[in-house]
């Protein structure tokens, strides 16, 4: 069940310079875990030592911030898009 994941520039070194990749999973956490299986090193960039998503990473599912959905448990299905956006970049793209 492929989910499209948009990867920010600083992480594209890990994804073979690709800004959009496919990953699988039933919720955000599973998709990000699958991303690590495919592209080693992604996880430590997204999560701190305690396993919490880093504060200056925003994750959007179909342009909605997951903090206002069900966080990493937010369900995803085929056709959904997950965007990984550095918070410092400012407001989300309209």
């Amino acid at each position: 069940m492929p989910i499209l994941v948009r990867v920010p520039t600083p992480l594209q070194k890990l994804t073979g310079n690709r800004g959009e990749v496919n990953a699988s999973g039933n919720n955000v956490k599973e998709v990000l875990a699958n991303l690590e299986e495919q592209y080693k090193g992604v996880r430590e960039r997204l999560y701190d030592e305690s396993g919490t998503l880093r504060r200056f990473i925003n994750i959007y599912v179909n342009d909605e911030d997951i903090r206002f959905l069900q966080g990493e448990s937010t369900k995803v299905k085929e056709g959904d898009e997950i965007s990984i956006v550095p918070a410092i970049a400012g407001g989300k793209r309209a």
Partner: protein
Amino acid sequence: MGYVLGLQCRECGRQYPKEPLHVCEFCFGPLEIVYDYEQIRRVLSRETIARGPRSMWRYQPLLPLDGDPTVGLQVGFTPLIKAKRLGKVMGLNNLYIKNDCVNHPTLSFKDRVVAVAVSKAKEFNYDTVACASTGNLANSVAAHAAEAGLKSYIFIPADIEMTKVVGTLIYGTTLVGIRGVYDEVNRLCSEIAANFPWAFVNITIRPFYGDGSKTFGYEIAEQLGWKAPDHVVIPVAGSSLITKVWKAFNEFAHLGLIDEVKTKIHAAQASGCAPVTTAIKENRDFIKPVIPNTIAKSIAIGNPADGYYGIKTVKESGGYGEDVADDEIVECMKLLAQTEGIFAETAGGVTLGVARKLVAQGRIQPDDVTVLAITGNGLKTQEAVMGDVGSPILIDPRLSAFQDLFNGKEGK
């Protein structure tokens, strides 16, 4: 010479060289300047500061330049005013106004950050500066770029006050109005910054730029007779100023220039754009972005870059956050003008309105030393009060015409 050792990520602590960087490439946290406080301690004292220029550059060792500043030499050291008449209305016996309405040259606190940023841009050999702005920063970047002889590109939401548009264009800049809110302007500028070799003062060289705001806090402490106040009420947009004033007091204490800091830092926002104060009230440590809708356009940032640290500053210091509606903002602009003779912009009305709420809530006590951060000039936001200040009385140029109207009556 300067006292900057390098840059460091506020989140993961990774160190970076002194370069135009602003985001940690590992964890995406914001970078901040690391100073050599041991060396600074050797060259900086109350006496050396007092002998310095009557500008923000009296604190130069605590600012992130390698050489002497090259633009904005007259910025800062604005008046700290004991507000007796306003204090009486508010029930406060030790109320002060830090008045950056009269900051040189563009009449807002932004001249502080821009003087540092443009001087730093020159040190980094940029020939072009740029910014995303709600207006005051636009005025200041355009002015300082003109003084420095640098090219400038300035990006604003298209609907800001006409005075701020004219007060930017006059300096001969390239001004781009974006059909959108500030957060969309800022997002676009991040993308532009990645594609053009310009010093975006509040993006590309943000760590350097931000530290200019510390001088607002240094001046308050020095002007109070080398002590930090009990309270500072600060208008919050991106949350940079509020974190830097807190940093300034703590640096002064660390350097032994003032005693222990017991200041409570309070955040002030407009009800139509209150992501930071709402988070504080709801005891959250993260921001829920909002779409701004307020007359206080200079602080209408719905997704503040430093919002997390703004909240943290307020909590660490034991302060609070409040917000006020647009009609209260206008009322408070008039109150400040009519008690102290100071015409502040809308953000000043926000600060005063919030201070009044904090007094009513008992968070600020009558004898507490309280400073209101008044950060911009009311002449730039006249639209906000135009319908609320009346109009001149028109008469013919004859004494009798005046007598007919005013004999036996008192003026205001």
